[in-house]
């Protein structure tokens, strides 16, 4: 029978917290950038300007057709080299965090843009007509009338995607970056307590994601109650 020994965890907590900060940092950057760039992509895709629509569609289809882990590896292998040569950085500068953030952000934008596109399309066409009839430009109609309604409908989906994203940040272990999962792995490896550390990490991921999805569900209920008026 395997003897569990949890004693290496308390001492490793500060190190694990550093890892958690990396995970959260990547998640936050990717969510913010993903929503901004995703909105731009969604609007391009819905635009009547053909080249823009084509670009956005290609971008989304490309990123949705390749595994995240591969994107991360590319960014880990290629982007640091490019950054270093372009910005003439010291070859020893650690750009793994930046490249992980960029990789995640670009990848997640493709998913966010699909959520946002559906959100924009869920706003009745008459709303744009009404805004236009009041003399608003297309940009004003989008900004003041369509997007606020679209985002309000989308918040649960956007947050759910953020939860998935948070779990996916564990994939940065491929670049040996010490995110929360990477940190747990390192500690477990060092102390020969891999099973305990991975169980612990799993429990932490579960606790955070479960709590977050409960919050999303509660928000969604509130939203539905509001719409039902």
């Amino acid at each position: 029978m395997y003897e569990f020994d949890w004693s290496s965890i308390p001492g490793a907590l500060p190190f694990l917290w550093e890892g958690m900060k990396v995970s959260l940092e990547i998640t936050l950057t990717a969510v913010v950038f993903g929503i901004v760039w995703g909105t731009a992509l969604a609007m391009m895709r819905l635009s009547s300007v053909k080249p823009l629509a084509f670009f956005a569609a290609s971008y989304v289809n490309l990123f949705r057709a390749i595994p995240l882990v591969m994107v991360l590896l590319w960014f880990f292998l290629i982007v640091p080299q490019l950054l270093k040569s372009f910005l003439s950085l010291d070859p020893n500068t650690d750009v793994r965090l930046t490249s992980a953030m960029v990789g995640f952000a670009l990848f997640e934008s493709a998913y966010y843009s699909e959520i946002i596109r559906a959100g924009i399309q869920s706003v009745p066409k008459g709303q744009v007509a009404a805004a236009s009839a009041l003399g608003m430009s297309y940009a004003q109609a989008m900004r003041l009338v369509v997007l606020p309604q679209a985002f309000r409908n989308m918040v649960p989906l956007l947050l759910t995607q953020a939860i998935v994203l948070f779990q996916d940040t564990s994939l940065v272990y491929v670049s040996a970056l010490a995110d929360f999962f990477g940190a747990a792995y390192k500690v477990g490896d060092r102390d020969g307590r891999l099973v305990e550390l991975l169980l612990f990490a799993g429990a932490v991921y579960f606790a955070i994601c479960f709590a977050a999805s409960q919050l999303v569900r509660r928000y969604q209920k509130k939203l539905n109650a509001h719409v039902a008026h």
Partner: protein
Amino acid sequence: MISIENVSKHYGSFQVLTDCTAQVKKGEVIVVCGPSGSGKSTLIKCVNGLEPFQAGSITVNGVSVGDPKTNLSKLRSHVGMVFQHFELFPHMSITDNLAIAQVKVLGRSREQAMDKGLKLLDRVGLKAHAGKFPGQLSGGQQQRVAIARALAMDPICMLFDEPTSALDPEMINEVLDVMVELAREGMTMMCVTHEMGFARKVANRVIFMDQGRIVEDDSKDAFFGSPRSERARQFLARILSH
């Protein structure tokens, strides 16, 4: 005020409007009626450029709607439009619905816009609902807010696209009353509606459309008294027997 000259429109090979010509003078109230699918809503949406058209020309107050050089947003900002499904902005309070375009399009101050909005809200009898959201009002109330929203822009004319067809019967009159009052004040109006009572009360002329063509354009007395075309006679017989 509004001049529609030989306007035609098609979606692909489907002809929606054929050679439509009509004039609306300042202060006139024109009712556009006809069976569904006759192109009346499309025609009225061409007037403020919400629907493009392929042939002919429309000028509003001397400005050509079809001309690509025309600043359509500017033109629309002083042509009021009321829609069948109200199209209030559901994420804004009633006061914000009334104020937003005044502030963002006409550049009025927020106080000015609020002030004007509240006055108009009072006029359509809904002052007590100022702080509510559109979803909390009945259809008739929403449509009255929509009329107030259009009036807040100080329009030179008003377009109504079936303003009562999405309403329950008991709410139709509260909206028509507002429209009648507006007509009596001398607002230039073009109304797509099946409300023949409204037409009898305030219309100067009635335009009857069928299959994308303007079949009759006559004074209301002539239209209701002795419609010239067989199609209009049938339409009137059916709608009045309701």
